[in-house]
C-alpha cells in the first residue's frame, strides 16, 4: 500500500462534483453513495433528482441499476466513494450483465475511508477499480487523474452508451460537512414527485 500517494493527487473532489453536476437537466438522475460523495453533491447544489444515501453502504451502484432500468430514457449517474464501491464489487458483474446503456458509475477515489479516520482502502494498494469493471464486462471504463482527463471523460459520463465506469483519483483532503436533509422519506418523495409527477405520491 502507498498510504501517502493520494495526498498529492491533482483533482479536488468538490470541484469535480461541481463539474459533473453543472448545467444538469431533469433528464439527469443522480444517486450518491454515503459519506463524502453525498456532501460533495450537496455542496454543488441540492436537487430533487439527486438521491443522497446516508447509509446502505454497498447499495449505490445497484440502486442506480434499478433506477436506470426503470427510466431508460434518462441518464443515471451514480457518484460514490472507493470504500463504498469496494463493498459492492459484485454489482459490477450484475450491472454489466444487464447492459444498461444509460448508467454511469463514478467513483471519487481518494484511497481512503474518509468518514472514519482516513484509513487507507484497497485502492491505495494493488486494486485497480476500472480494471475490475472492465473485466466484469463494462464496455466503457476510464481512470482519471488530471483536469484534462476529466474533461475528456465528461462525454463518457454524460452520453456514451454504457454501462460506463470512471474512477476519478481525487486528493485525500479534510473537508467541511455539507449535509442535505437526512429524512429518507422526504428524499424519496421529492425525487418521485419531480420525476413521475404529483400523482406518484397518491
Amino acid at each position, binding site marked *: 500500500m502507498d498510504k501517502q500517494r493520494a495526498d498529492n493527487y491533482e483533482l479536488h473532489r468538490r470541484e469535480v462534483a461541481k463539474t459533473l453536476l453543472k448545467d444538469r437537466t431533469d433528464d439527469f438522475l443522480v444517486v450518491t453513495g454515503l459519506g463524502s460523495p453525498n456532501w460533495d453533491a450537496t455542496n454543488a447544489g441540492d436537487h430533487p433528482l439527486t438521491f443522497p444515501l446516508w447509509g*446502505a453502504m454497498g*447499495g449505490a*451502484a*445497484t440502486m442506480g441499476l*434499478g433506477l436506470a*432500468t*426503470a427510466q431508460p430514457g434518462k441518464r443515471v449517474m451514480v457518484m460514490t466513494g472507493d470504500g463504498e464501491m469496494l463493498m459492492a464489487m459484485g454489482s459490477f458483474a450484475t450491472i454489466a450483465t444487464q447492459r444498461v446503456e444509460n448508467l454511469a458509475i463514478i467513483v471519487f477515489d481518494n484511497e481512503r475511508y474518509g468518514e472514519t479516520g482516513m484509513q487507507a482502502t484497497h485502492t491505495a494498494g494493488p486494486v485497480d477499480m476500472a480494471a475490475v469493471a472492465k473485466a466484469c464486462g463494462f464496455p466503457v471504463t476510464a481512470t482519471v487523474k488530471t483536469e484534462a482527463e476529466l474533461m475528456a471523460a465528461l462525454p463518457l459520463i454524460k452520453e456514451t452508451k454504457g454501462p460506463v465506469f470512471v474512477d476519478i483519483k481525487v486528493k485525500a483532503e479534510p473537508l467541511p460537512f455539507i449535509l442535505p436533509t437526512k429524512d*429518507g422519506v422526504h428524499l*424519496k418523495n421529492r425525487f418521485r414527485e419531480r420525476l413521475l409527477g404529483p400523482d406518484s405520491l397518491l
Partner: protein
Amino acid sequence: MTENYAWAPDIYDVLKDLDVRQVAYVPDAGHARLLKMCEADNAMRCIPLTTEEEGISLSAGAWLGGERAVMLLQSSGVGNCINMISLANTCRFPLLMLVTMRAQWREFNPWQKPMGEGTRPALEAMGVKVTQVDEPDQVGETVRSAGEQAYGWPDMAAVLLHQKLMPVKTFGK
C-alpha cells in the same frame, strides 16, 4: 410436497396483476419454475444478483424510477440482506421478498439450519412483515396480500415459502 411447483404459476399471475417489472434473484430450485415464466415475459426484466443484498437497493432504485421490483431468494440469502434493509426501512421503500425456506422439513443439509431458523427473526428484527405459507393453494393469495401492502402502503414484506412446498433434496442419497 408438490413435485411440480403447481403454485408457481399462481405467483406469476399475481406478479402480473401487481405490474412487477424487475425480478431480482439469486436462484433457488424452489423458484426455478417461476423464474422460467418470468424470463419468458418481455414485460419483466430478470436480474441475476451476485449477492442478495443487491436486490434491496435495486428494488429501491426501481421504485424511485416508477417501477415495481420483486426479490426471489432462498432463506440463506436473507442473511446477506440485513443491513441493506435499512434503506427500505428508513425511506419507506416498498420491498417484496419471496423466500424459499430450508431447514424446516426433511432437510438433508445441517449447514442450512442456522440461517433457516434465523430467517424470520432476522427479517422481523429489521422491521419486515413476515408471512409464511405451507398450503399450495394459498401461495398465490398470500403473495398478493403481501404485494398489495408492500407497494400500496408502502411497506416491507417477506413471504416464506415453507419447505413442504418443495421436493425433498437428498443430494443423491
